[in-house]
């Protein structure tokens, strides 16, 4: 009896010992040396795994940063969620310096509100923009505008996009938007653009994506760009506006924020974001006005506000 117990203990003990030796050898022989800095960098990242940096999740980005640091430069690496503070931390861990690009924000380039863009039909299929896109034009006469099912909203990890039931359009909460670009990728019509936020959050944008000829675009939506080119003429000096496929586009890098194009647009398709309200009928030729009374915060639902501003001027 005692023998049996002894033998069992001995055999099991020996097997355990042998296994431990094998494990020890193997763990040394096949050890994977991971740069400890990857874990350190990963720790300072937001951990949202949004993919906005272009890598598969935060750990992928951390590995890419370390690799880039080994090669000598962090250029082109940016966590859009964490922005400058996080990138500075990453750089200090890696013993590098980082030059930040200007902050960006998502812009919904469509102002086809229920009022501006009459609904010709009602889509009753699966509530998904991508499904609706397969039906062709969707609910309205505009084949380029927002489909309104909220694919972008469901992709936003930061609660920065919401559908406005009144306008039927998504609205960006600039405070929360991290410019990760998930919404831009989700939009089957490519309406959302990740754009320079601009000084004090001010920027001038063509809020339309319609590439149809003027007559068709005009019929489909009151606020559509008809490709008339008036804005291009007002901007001859800075050449910030280009007209391609019947659609004007403002280059954010070149734009001087003079807002002349906004006045020139006969359709009110160009919008200035976060500018102080205009004084009625006083000529202010150059824009960087000294009045900074308005902070950019109080205009989360910017796309709808400028419409109201512009419309009276159109009536003149």
């Amino acid at each position, binding site marked *: 009896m005692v023998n049996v117990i002894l033998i069992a203990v001995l055999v099991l003990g020996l097997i355990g010992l042998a296994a431990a030796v094998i494990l020890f050898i193997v763990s040394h022989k096949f050890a994977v040396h991971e740069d400890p800095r990857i874990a350190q960098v990963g720790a300072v990242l937001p951990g949202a795994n949004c993919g906005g940096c272009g890598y598969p999740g935060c750990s992928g980005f951390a590995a890419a940063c370390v690799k880039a640091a080994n090669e000598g430069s962090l250029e082109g690496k940016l966590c859009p969620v964490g922005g400058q503070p996080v990138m500075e931390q990453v750089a200090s861990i890696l013993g590098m310096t980082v030059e930040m690009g200007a902050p960006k924000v998502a812009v919904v380039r469509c102002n086809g509100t229920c009022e501006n863009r009459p609904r010709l039909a009602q889509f009753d*299929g*699966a509530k998904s923009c991508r499904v609706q896109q397969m039906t*062709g*034009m969707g609910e309205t006469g505009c084949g380029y505008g927002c489909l309104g099912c909220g694919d972008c909203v469901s992709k936003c990890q930061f609660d920065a996009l919401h559908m406005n039931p009144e306008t039927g359009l998504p609205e960006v909460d600039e405070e929360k938007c991290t410019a990760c670009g998930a919404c831009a990728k989700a939009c089957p019509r490519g309406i959302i653009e990740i754009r320079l936020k601009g000084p004090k959050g001010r920027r001038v944008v063509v809020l339309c994506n319609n590439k149809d000829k003027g007559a068709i675009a005009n019929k489909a939506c009151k606020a559509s760009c008809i490709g008339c080119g008036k804005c291009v003429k007002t901007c001859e000096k800075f050449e910030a506006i280009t007209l391609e496929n019947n659609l004007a586009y403002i280059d954010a890098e070149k734009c001087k924020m003079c807002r002349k194009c906004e006045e020139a647009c006969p359709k009110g398709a160009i919008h200035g974001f976060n500018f102080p309200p205009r004084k009625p009928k006083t000529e202010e030729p150059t824009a960087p006005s000294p009045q900074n009374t308005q902070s950019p915060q109080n205009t989360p639902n910017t796309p709808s506000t400028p419409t109201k501003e512009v419309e009276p001027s159109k009536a003149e």
Partner: protein
Amino acid sequence: MKTFKIGGVHPAENKLSASSPIREAALPKQAVFSMFQHIGAPAKPVVKKGDEVKVGTLLAEAGGFVSAPIHSSVSGKVSKVDVALDASGTRRMAVYVDVEGDEWEESIDRSPALVKLSDRPELDSKAIVEKIKNAGIVGMGGATFPCHVKLSPPPGSKAECVIINAVECEPYLTADHRLMLEHPEEILVGLQLIMKAVGVSKGYIGIENNKPDAIALMTEKAKNYAGIEVVPLKVKYPQGGEKQLIDAVISRQVPAPPAIPISVGAVVQNVGTAFAIYQAVMKNKPLIDRIITVTGKSVKQPSNLLARLGTPFQQLMDECGGLPEDTGKIIGGGPMMGKALLSLDVPMTKGSSGLLIMNDKETRRAEPQPCIRCAKCVSACPMGLEPYLLSKLSATADWEGAEKNDVVSCIECGSCQFTCPSHRPLLDMIRLGKTTVMGIIRSRAAK
């Protein structure tokens, strides 16, 4: 009685216009010819603004091998070459012709006399296919696949029989039914031409037994044509699907893509296509008109119209008593596979088999409920797929999983969605998955 083996559903037939004879629709004031009337490369316009055209004049040439030319169905002047809203719901290139008079190209034989195959012994396989190609004939059942491609089997495959699809399993539609009742001999000669083109001696005509008059008439007439057999089929949707029809008629199963019907020795053509082939080869008439069923429960006068291509749907609607007040959906095609149209301001194309008006009550979709795992969709799927799973994979953007589960085999018949007690938008999501996966496969092949 024969039918296909797996899946299938039984939607209400509603063949309201079955007893209304084909009548000719009036000429439109302006005809619009979309360059996208077929699957494959779009046609290339060969006319310009101001050109005079006659009925049968070439407007656009084929844009590739899998493509088809487009001929004018009216005489008049080309007013512009510009984009137009078409049945796909998008604005695409089209030729606009302002109609003046009704002058036909002299080469077209407009007499009603029947020309038999024995009257034209000089026609060989090559000549027939060439004529079909030049006449711009496409699959008239709705899929609009260029006809000459199907009649030019890829090397290594050999056709054994031709099957004419006269099933018309879509509810409401009766265009094929009326065509068989009014032009049986032309269809049979058309079938003979197809058989000669692909070099086979056996031809079948599959007809569902909800059309007993057509079955009787065709059987009677087919007695004079060697090698042609009429096969009555049990009513079940989607029997008109190419693969389902092959299974039903000759009990052979077409494997998953890239296999095609010719892989099992079958060439399937729609009955309307056979008629168009007869007209093209024997009468020299390119594809310029077709029979379209204009129907719906509230439509005053459900009809089968012989209408010229390019006629706006609005006009066809007016000829049948105008758009009913309780219209909920305007559908191009049948209720199962047709596509809802944004407006009646859309021209009819080669694939327009029906214009269906459904009232708001019968067409409105119910709010989707959670899947209760009843597997009704699985039993209904005629391709043996698992629709609930494919739809879920699409919804979660798992394209790899969707590809593994054979989403590309889906024929988009809608049986799953029809049968779902939870009213889930299964086909919507599966179609999204199928399009995406096919795109992925194409880009992979391009690499």
